[in-house]
């Protein structure tokens, strides 16, 4: 479903992605993990082309776009590709001039041209799923961090994208809610939605990801099945990174 | 103020309001100096009063308002003597006479008299009372900001005629001898302009009248008149 080849991305002089390959099969769930500044968000944004790679090939579904320095991109192809993806941003990016429910309806009304009633019904249903039906008419400015994040998730899910990209989808959620949202995402995964998520929450990654990619300094250090990466990582660096979780988890677990 | 004249004498200056953009009456010559018929008359009057003339230049709209605001003592700017103005201000005896002329394009043979203006477009500066004349003749008014614009309208065919005074027209023809406009008719009665001052200063009006008489008597007036018009324009 997703096939990235030799993606390079620089901001000015600063190379941020240094030749990344990524394959996600239809219905696959891939977690991007790695230290801060490693390029997770940038890679994610390269998938739906909010960031244009300096070079490399991006393929999502039927759409395949090749990038080379100095070559123009076909805007129609970009739009085509984007229409198959939904995204949850690290800082939510709700539309501040619309209520929660209007945020969720926006894509249905404007892009898919659904009638208002139907869009509203679906939006309410999604808000209910993330536990926010009671805040449907609230403005984003009056929502707590976790509430904003859940609206953002509902908004991304509304047009039933084939591919869902999530940048830290549970960063503002308490463990309980995080559990619920993870359940929603896991169910989507089961229903066949392809998912890529950048996350620090290794437990989330462990729970719903089939594959894990460990990204550091713009390079893939290790990639493989989730169970394999978590249970027997092959690279020393991965072992070290994963161990922080284990230690902390153990410490907390042990205490309880 | 009854002591208007006294104040002027003690200050040693007669402050005169004028436009400074109305050739040949009040304008600036190539060197930038304020000159013109009205300006020189003003200087001559001040001379006779035994004071210096000081000119303040402003737009027509503000000229008479400046009189009310006591920014100057008199306005000398081709202010026509009319009943309406007399109700609010005092005038000296007239110091110049001019006649309204009807100006049309050279190739226009349709309009020959003021009466022919009926139903025609006449370009009129809003600062003059020629507009009223045009209106009374049945013309449709096209308002402009000045004589030069009225002529432009005439030349571009947006107006059929304009009424102005014969002296301004002569000045214009002197500057632009090639302009394709002509006088179609001249009004029989002359219009008179005077020095206008605030009410309640009979001594000042009298002194100005005396000064006018004096400059006419000693030939000063004749010299000025000849200089600007090549004729005596007092009647």
């Amino acid at each position, binding site marked *: 479903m997703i096939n990235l080849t030799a993606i390079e991305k620089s901001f000015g002089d600063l190379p941020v992605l240094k030749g990344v390959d990524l394959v996600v099969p239809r219905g696959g769930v891939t977690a991007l993990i790695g230290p801060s500044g490693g390029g997770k968000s940038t890679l994610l944004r390269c998938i739906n082309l909010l960031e244009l790679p300096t070079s490399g090939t991006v393929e999502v579904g039927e759409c395949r776009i090749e990038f080379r320095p100095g070559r123009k991109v076909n805007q129609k192809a970009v739009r085509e590709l984007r229409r198959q993806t939904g*995204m949850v941003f690290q800082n939510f990016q709700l539309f501040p*001039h619309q209520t929660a429910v209007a945020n969720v309806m926006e894509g249905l009304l404007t892009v*898919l041209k659904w009638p208002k009633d139907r869009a509203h019904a679906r939006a309410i249903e999604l808000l209910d799923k993330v536990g926010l039906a009671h805040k449907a008419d609230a*403005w*984003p400015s009056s929502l707590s961090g976790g509430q904003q994040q859940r609206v953002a998730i509902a908004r991304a899910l509304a047009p039933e994208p084939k591919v869902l990209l999530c940048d830290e989808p549970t960063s503002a959620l308490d463990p309980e809610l995080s559990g619920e949202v993870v359940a929603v995402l896991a169910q989507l995964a089961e229903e066949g939605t392809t998912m890529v998520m950048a996350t620090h929450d290794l437990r989330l990654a462990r729970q719903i990801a089939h594959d894990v990619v460990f990204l550091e300094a713009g390079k893939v250090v290790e990639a493989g099945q989730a169970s394999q990466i978590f249970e027997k990582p092959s690279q020393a660096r991965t072992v070290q990174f994963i161990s922080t979780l284990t230690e902390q988890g153990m410490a907390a677990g042990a205490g309880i | 103020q009854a002591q208007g004249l006294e104040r002027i004498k003690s200050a040693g200056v007669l402050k005169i309001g004028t436009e400074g953009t109305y050739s040949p009456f009040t304008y600036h010559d190539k060197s930038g100096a304020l000159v013109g018929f009205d300006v020189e008359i003003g200087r001559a009057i001040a001379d006779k009063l035994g004071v210096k003339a000081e000119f303040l230049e402003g737009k027509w*709209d503000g000229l008479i308002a400046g009189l009310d605001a006591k920014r100057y003592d008199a306005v000398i700017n081709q202010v026509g003597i009319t009943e309406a103005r007399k109700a609010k201000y005092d005038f000296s005896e007239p110091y110049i006479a001019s006649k309204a002329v009807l100006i049309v394009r050279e190739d226009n043979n349709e309009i020959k008299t003021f009466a022919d203006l009926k139903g025609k477009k006449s*370009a009129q500066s809003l600062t003059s*009372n020629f*507009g009223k004349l045009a209106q009374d003749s049945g013309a449709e008014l096209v308002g402009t900001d000045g004589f030069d614009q009225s002529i432009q309208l005439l030349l571009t065919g947006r107006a059929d005629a304009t009424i102005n005074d014969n002296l301004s027209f002569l000045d214009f023809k002197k500057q632009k001898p090639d302009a394709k406009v002509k006088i179609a008719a001249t009004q029989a009665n002359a219009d008179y302009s005077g020095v206008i001052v605030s009410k309640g200063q009979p001594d000042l009006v009298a002194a100005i009248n005396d000064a006018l008489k004096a400059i006419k008597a000693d030939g000063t007036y004749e010299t000025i008149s000849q200089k600007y018009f090549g004729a005596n324009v007092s009647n």
Partner: protein
Amino acid sequence: MPHWLQLMLESLGPLLWAGVQFTIPLTLLSFALGLTVGLAAALIRLFGPKPLAAIVRFYVWIIRGTPLLVQLFLIFYGLPSIGILLDAFPAALIGFTLNVGAYTSEIIRAVISSVPKGQWEAAYSIGMTWPQALRRTVLPQAARTAVPPLSNTFISLVKDTSLAAAITVPELFQAAQRIVATTYEPLILYVEAALIYLALSSVLSVLQERLEIRLNRQGGFVEARA
């Protein structure tokens, strides 16, 4: 009845009539057209191809840089020399539209770029095209900041239409001048004209306020970004 009041009452009719006939239609038409031109110009400068953007910059530079009066003069008295003879009202309309377009394009450009880039991205991420993102997401947010400066331009325009008098459009201020020419009471007539302008702009000020309140209510989005 004092003289000034009587004069004011007598002149009210002609002034209002001139306002209704010329000032108001000229203002409304040229603002509507000018705003369209301004939006287009702003979008070209922000997103258009370089050569087109350069042309727009030139347009804004010329129009903002020269007096409106001179522009009107050139359109009305100058164009005939190259064979274009416009009537006064269309000439004024063109002049004012070009002016409003140049000034508002700068405002619109500024407020569009004040909308966080992330809002464009959010719009794209749910599948919107560029025009959709602009219309549904960016412009509504930009509008809030744009209203006061745009209404500056609008309210200035109401009064600038008086310059149309210079090219023979008998609008409100010219009507006042005509009466001044026979009554010699510029102060009284001008104050009266000013009061009528004030009434017109008050309507606009009230609209501005309503609009601001409505846009602010939309989630008081000052906080939203906080």
